[in-house]
């Protein structure tokens, strides 16, 4: 309990320790702590920035996606319209082609019947001449009575036509 030289010794020890701490411990410790603090702060800032950018990128992607969707819908619409048109055109072409074919067949039939009629007329005329020749007992000059014969043949055909 006595006060003695220990007090001096302890004072000297304390001065030395505080000096050492001030010189060799405090500055590097504080520097390390402050450097880490700023590193952590910048890290947090970078993280926040990254998150913000990510959100922005998400928004951008969403927008692009929407545009793409719209465009796709438009394209589908156009294609549908176009296909409708093509189908309609094809229908038109087919109808007109059909009509053309029908018309051609009809005119062919008309031609055929006309030819058949003229053939028949000639045949009937020759038959009539032959018949008349036998009736008259002599050769009928087909050339001399051509007009008469033709008229006769036409009449017969008409009669036949009326009956048949």
């Amino acid at each position: 309990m006595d006060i003695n030289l220990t007090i001096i010794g302890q004072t000297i020890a304390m001065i030395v320790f505080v000096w050492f701490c001030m010189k060799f411990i405090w500055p590097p410790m504080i520097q390390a702590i402050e450097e880490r603090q700023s590193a952590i702060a910048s890290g947090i800032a970078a993280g926040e920035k990254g998150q913000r950018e990510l959100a922005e990128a998400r928004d951008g992607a969403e927008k692009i996606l929407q545009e793409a969707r719209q465009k796709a819908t438009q394209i589908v619409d156009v294609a549908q319209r176009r296909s409708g048109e093509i189908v309609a055109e094809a229908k038109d072409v087919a109808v007109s082609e059909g009509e053309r074919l029908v018309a051609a067949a009809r005119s062919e039939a008309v031609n055929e019947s006309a030819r058949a009629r003229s053939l028949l007329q000639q045949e009937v005329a020759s038959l009539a001449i032959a018949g008349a020749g036998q009736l008259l007992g002599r050769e009928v000059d087909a050339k001399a009575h051509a007009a008469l014969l033709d008229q006769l043949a036409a009449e017969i055909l008409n009669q036949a036509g009326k009956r048949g």
Partner: protein
Amino acid sequence: MAAEGHSAGEYIAHHLQNLTVCRVDGQWVWNECHGNFYAINVDSMFFSVVLGLVFLTLFRMVAVRATRGVPGRLQAVIEMTVGFVDQSVRETFHGDSKLIAPLALTLFVWVFFMNLMDLIPVDWLPGTAALIGVPYLKVVPTTDVNITFAMALSVFVLIVFYSIKIKGIGGFAKELTLQPFNHWAAIPFNLVLEGVSLLAKPISLSLRLFGNLYAGELIFILIALMGLWQLPFHFIWAVFHILIIVLQAFIFMMLTIVYLSLAHEGH
């Protein structure tokens, strides 16, 4: 446990006796130095210097290897301590001083380490020392009033030094004489008042630490006298004492900061 043939009083007295060396009549004398100023408490000096070196080595080691990357466990603990002291200093002390913060750190950790010796069971180190022929050993330096007074007086010197440095001798003298009553007739009264308050700072600073630790140590010794029944009591008191040793180290550091910041700011 009290040794055979010793009374409880002798046991306690033995535990509270420093290992002292002094020079009498040209010869080194052990433990016969009552009233002799030129004596050294070898145990107090030894443990305080060793613990101070432990503090310096530990912190220096970490400081050298300190990285700004992810700290290890030890570095984290040391940095927490440093950060805690730094924050305490920043909150209280607003001047610009390169000394205050390292001073506060040294005092805090050093006093804490010295207090920590109190948790070592009271007979271990003195018992071991007795086996190798050392008659007395007081292992807690802060239960030696010399140790606490030395630190408090150093702080006191710093208080006076900074008071004069910041305010000048005139300013410091004015602070001592013209407060609290600013009238020439009140100067003696003020001087007594302020003088007492100034001198009370180191005395209260050192006696608070000394008293707490001395009382704590004494109770540990008393508990140790109980024989086998000491175990639960020792445990309870040790747990409570953990609070005390940290708190006293913190109070010592905090008051040092407060006194020095007062010396810087004035009224």
